[in-house]
């Protein structure tokens, strides 16, 4: 073997090792974050956390019951808002995939996906908060809904495209209108996957903080009113984390743990469901 060849092979080996190292380097923060969240958070989770309200500044104890409920309400509003719009948009893109209009819309959805969440928050502020001069749960839900829309659009379109075209033709041949064929036959066929996609989108927006800061704001008290500011896990954790109180720090970790657990569960469930669907769709 010539010296040149030996050198090239050495280099090749070296770079292969470096790539493996890159994987290890990336997994270290992942492991650390999960470790700390579990270590600090799991221990701080107790019954109080789920059932009590935040205590006044300086007092220890209490929980995040209002924030947990608040997050659920917010993502509920987001879903109500984003699923119809994103879903039907996805239907249009799947049914008319190659028109210029569809390309533009698809592009717009991609753009929306990349808009920083805080900017979307400003938009929701201008749209929902400013006109009524009041922060509200609706404003927060709408902001989250905007963030959800691109994901719902993309998932819906992809899954509808996977449904075999014969289904639509069969329905039309039986005399169904286009709308009936699509919404009655094709969408139901793709529904499990679409629902999974929606779950993934919900998981994502459940973890958002920035757009809620000036739409839903936060609320120390129990509130389920849609027209009032509402507490949320993320903003509560954010507030607590920046405070000087140890007990609040402890609760912040607990909140983070809960968030990560929710997101992890949803994400694993979605992965499993997607894999099962893929296996079903491949003959």
């Amino acid at each position: 073997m010539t010296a040149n060849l030996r050198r090239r092979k050495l280099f090749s080996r070296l770079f292969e090792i470096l790539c493996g190292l890159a994987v290890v380097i990336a997994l270290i923060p992942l492991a650390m974050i999960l470790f700390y969240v579990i270590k600090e958070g799991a221990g701080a989770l107790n019954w109080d956390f789920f059932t009590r309200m935040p205590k006044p500044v300086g007092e220890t104890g209490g929980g995040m019951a209002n924030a947990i409920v608040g997050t659920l309400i917010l993502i509920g509003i987001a879903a109500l808002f984003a699923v119809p719009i994103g879903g039907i948009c996805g239907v249009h893109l799947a049914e008319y995939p190659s028109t210029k209009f569809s390309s533009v819309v698809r592009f717009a959805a991609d753009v929306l996906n990349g808009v920083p969440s805080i900017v979307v928050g400003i938009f929701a502020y201008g749209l929902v908060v400013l006109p009524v001069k009041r922060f509200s749960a609706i404003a927060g839900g709408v902001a989250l809904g905007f963030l959800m829309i691109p994901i719902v659009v993309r998932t819906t379109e992809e899954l509808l495209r996977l449904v075999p075209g014969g289904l639509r033709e069969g329905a039309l041949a039986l005399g169904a209108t286009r709308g009936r064929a699509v919404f009655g036959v094709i969408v139901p066929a793709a529904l499990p996957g679409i629902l999974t996609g929606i779950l993934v989108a919900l998981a994502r927006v459940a973890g958002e903080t920035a757009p809620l800061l000036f739409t839903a704001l936060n609320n120390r008290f129990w509130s389920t009113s849609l027209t009032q500011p509402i507490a949320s896990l993320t903003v509560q954790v954010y507030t607590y984390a920046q405070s000087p109180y140890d007990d609040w720090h402890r609760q912040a970790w607990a909140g983070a743990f809960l968030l990560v657990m929710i997101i992890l569960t949803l994400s694993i469930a979605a992965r499993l469901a997607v894999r099962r669907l893929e296996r079903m769709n491949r003959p």
Partner: protein
Amino acid sequence: MNLVLEPESKIAAPRMAPIQMNDIQTESKISVRDFDFFYGPLQVLHGISLEIPAQKVTALIGPSGCGKSTFIRSINRMNDIITDARASGTITIDGKDVYGGDTDVVELRRKVGMVFQKSNPFPKSIYDNVAYGLRIGGMRNKRQMDEIIERSLTRAALWHEVKDRLHASALALSGGQQQRLCIARALAVDPEILLMDEPASALDPIATSKIEELIYELKDNYTIVIVTHNMQQAARVSDRTAFFMLGKLIEYADTNAIFMNPREKMTEDYVTGRFG
């Protein structure tokens, strides 16, 4: 010789030494003995034995899936890239075992060039494509590179068409030109053997005949093994022909003999178009 067709249509390979009608003086460049090849549990080559003569064109023919591509890729160990692939038996080039412990694969592939069915130029200039093998081999001298590149492109019958636009993108060439570029690229590293896996199958008749002319000219300097599903091409271009079927070597002889006077019935059926 009678062939017995077994119920599952497995072809019993003739258990005799490969036929060499003449040229006992011609050295074997490539010598294959009892070569088996497996993709995982599936055996795709069974006991292949043949001698490939130097500076001649040897064609491998046979129906789709008969293993000829797998065989040719075993010669330069391109199959190594595939996971779960296993080989047994020997292939020697100039007496040296290709799968031997002291054979360096990278060095082997410089010595044994390969041209693929679908031409695959890099998205670089014509010059950079041909220079690729030289550059990774460590050549820096520009004048030397220029000379070799001109020589390779000339040998591939492409020089006159591209000499004024060496720095244009290779992808701007026609299909036939791209394939000749790939041949030039392979020639640049000065191989002794050229393996060609259906090099003209994706080309139109004019481009194909240009490639065939090229092969005829190249054999003076290189040992060429060509896989082709086009029997007329094999008849036109090659000196020896090997007929493969279901992973077994059925017959191997001078091209004339294979096509005019095949010894095995399977061979006769194939070359007369009764199947395949």
